[in-house]
C-alpha cells in the first residue's frame, strides 16, 4: 500500500512517524493529486530531485484546505524516514533553499532536542527570501531565518503541531549545549566594553521582565555575559513573537512614531546602546530588502517589520522621547518617501481610531476601562477579558 510507513522505520516519539501529522491533514495529503502522482515510490535520492523543484512552502490553503507540495514532501520523508546524514546534507546544502527548509522542518519534527538546536541555529545566518503560501491562498514573503525562528520558538508551523522540545536554557544548564553564540557577537564585543552600567541595567530589567513574562529562566543569578547573550537571543525571539501576538493590544498609534524613529536611527551614533546597534545593522539590511519587497509583495510583511523595529525602539522610549518630538516632522517627510503604500494601515486604522477615541469618550460612557473587563456582570467581564486577549473589542 502506498500510504504505509516503511516497515523498517523507527517509531518517532512513540508512534508511527506519519502520525506526527494529524489525521485530518494526513487524509487531505493522501487524497492530493501531487501526492498520488509525484510522490509514489519515491526514495531518498529521487526525493531530492522533487525537493529541488519546490518553489514555495506552506501548510494548507483554500476553502477545502488543500496541502502544498511542501507538505506532501514532508509527509513522504516521514514515510520513508531517510537517515540522519541525508537530512543533515539537506540542511547543509547551500544552493537550494527550499531543500534546506525541508530538511530543517523534518529535523524539527523527528530530531532530538540537541540536534534540533545544533543544526538549525546555523541557519539563522541565512537571510534568503522564501515564498510562503498563506491559508487564504495568497503568497507572502518570508526569510529563511524567520522560518527557522518559528520552528525553534513556536509550537505550530505549516499546519503541523511541532513536537515539544526542551527550551534552550534547560539544555544549557544540563550542559548538553553551549550558550548561544551569535555570529554578530564579535562585532558587539567592542560596543559592550564602552557601555555604561546603568544603560545596560535599564535595558536588562526590561528584557528580564519580558523574559520572566514569557516564562523563560530567571536570569538574575547568571553572570552578565551569559545573560547578555541569552537576552539578545531571547529578545530577538521575543520581538518576533511578541509583536505578532500583542501588537493589537499595544495600540497601533505608535507605528507612526516608530516609523519616524526608524529613519532617524541610521544617523544615531553607535555608542548609544547595543540593542539599537544590533537592530540598526539589521535595519540597513532590511532597508535594502524592503525596496524590493515594496515592489513585489503585499505590505503585510513590511508592516510587521515596521512593528518589529517599532517595538525594539520602545526599550529606549524614555531616552528618545524628547528627540522624538523634535524629529517628528523631518522623519515623517523622509518616511513618506521611503515607504510608499499605507494600505496595510487600512485594516488597523479602524481599530486604531477606535481605541484612540475611546479614551476621550471614556468619561461620557462612564467606563473605567476601555475593554470592558470591569463590567458588573462577571460573565460578561470574563468574556471581555478573553476578547481583549484575542484582540477583539468588548461585547456590546
Amino acid at each position, binding site marked *: 500500500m502506498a500510504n504505509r510507513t516503511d516497515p523498517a522505520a523507527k517509531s518517532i516519539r512513540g508512534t508511527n512517524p506519519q502520525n506526527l501529522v494529524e489525521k*485530518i491533514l494526513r487524509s487531505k495529503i493522501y487524497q492530493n493529486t501531487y501526492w498520488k502522482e509525484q510522490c509514489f515510490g519515491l526514495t531518498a535520492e529521487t526525493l531530492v530531485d522533487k525537493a529541488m523543484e519546490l518553489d514555495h512552502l506552506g501548510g494548507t490553503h483554500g*476553502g477545502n484546505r488543500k496541502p502544498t507540495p511542501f507538505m506532501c514532501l514532508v509527509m513522504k520523508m516521514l514515510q520513508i524516514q531517510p537517515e540522519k546524514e541525508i537530512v543533515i546534507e539537506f540542511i547543509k546544502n547551500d544552493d537550494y533553499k527550499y531543500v534546506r527548509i525541508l530538511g530543517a522542518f523534518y529535523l524539527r519534527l523527528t530530531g532530538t532536542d540537541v540536534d534540533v538546536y545544533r543544526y538549525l541555529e546555523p541557519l539563522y545566518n541565512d537571510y534568503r527570501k522564501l515564498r510562503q503560501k498563506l491559508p487564504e491562498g495568497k503568497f507572502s514573503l518570508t526569510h529563511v531565518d524567520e522560518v527557522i525562528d518559528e520552528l525553534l520558538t513556536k509550537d505550530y508551523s505549516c499546519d503541523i503541531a511541532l513536537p515539544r522540545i526542551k527550551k534552550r536554557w534547560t539544555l544549557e544548564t544540563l550542559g548538553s549545549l553551549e550558550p548561544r553564540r551569535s555570529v554578530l557577537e564579535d562585532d558587539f564585543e567592542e560596543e559592550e566594553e564602552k557601555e555604561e552600567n546603568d544603560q545596560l541595567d535599564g535595558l536588562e530589567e526590561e528584557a528580564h521582565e519580558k523574559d520572566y513574562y514569557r516564562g523563560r529562566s530567571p536570569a538574575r543569578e547568571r553572570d552578565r555575559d551569559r545573560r547578555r547573550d541569552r537576552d539578545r537571543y531571547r529578545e530577538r525571539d521575543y520581538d518576533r513573537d511578541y509583536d505578532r501576538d500583542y501588537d493589537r493590544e499595544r495600540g497601533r498609534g505608535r507605528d507612526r512614531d516608530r516609523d519616524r524613529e526608524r529613519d532617524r536611527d541610521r544617523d544615531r551614533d553607535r555608542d548609544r546602546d547595543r540593542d539599537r546597534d544590533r537592530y540598526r545593522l539589521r535595519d540597513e539590511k532590511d532597508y535594502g530588502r524592503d525596496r524590493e519587497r515594496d515592489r513585489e509583495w503585499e505590505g503585510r510583511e513590511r508592516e510587521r517589520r515596521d512593528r518589529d523595529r517599532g517595538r525594539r525602539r520602545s526599550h529606549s522610549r524614555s531616552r528618545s522621547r524628547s528627540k522624538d518630538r523634535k524629529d517628528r516632522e523631518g522623519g515623517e517627510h523622509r518616511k513618506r518617501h521611503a515607504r510608499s503604500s499605507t494600505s496595510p494601515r487600512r485594516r488597523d486604522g479602524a481599530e486604531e481610531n477606535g481605541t484612540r477615541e475611546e479614551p476621550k469618550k471614556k468619561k461620557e460612557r462612564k467606563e473605567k476601562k476601555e475593554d470592558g473587563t470591569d463590567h458588573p456582570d462577571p*460573565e*460578561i467581564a470574563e*468574556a471581555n477579558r*478573553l476578547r481583549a486577549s484575542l484582540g477583539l473589542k468588548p461585547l*456590546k
Partner: protein
Amino acid sequence: MIEVVLNDRLGKKVRVKCNEDDTIGDLKKLVAAQTGTRAEKIRIQKWYNIYKNHITLKDYEIHDGMGLELYYD
C-alpha cells in the same frame, strides 16, 4: 451582543457570546479559546454552506441563539 451555539455532534457543544459585527474569523478564535482546538482548524458550517472568515455574523444573518455546525479541517 448575541450568543451562538456551536455543535459538532460528537460531544462538543459550546455557547459563545459575541457581537453581531464580529467576523467569522473572530468567532472561530472565541470557539478555539473555549474548546481548545486551533482556530485555523475550525470550520463553521450551516448545512453545506461553509462560512467564510472575513464576513460578519450580521451579514450571515446569524441571530441570537442560533445553532451552527462545527467541523474540523
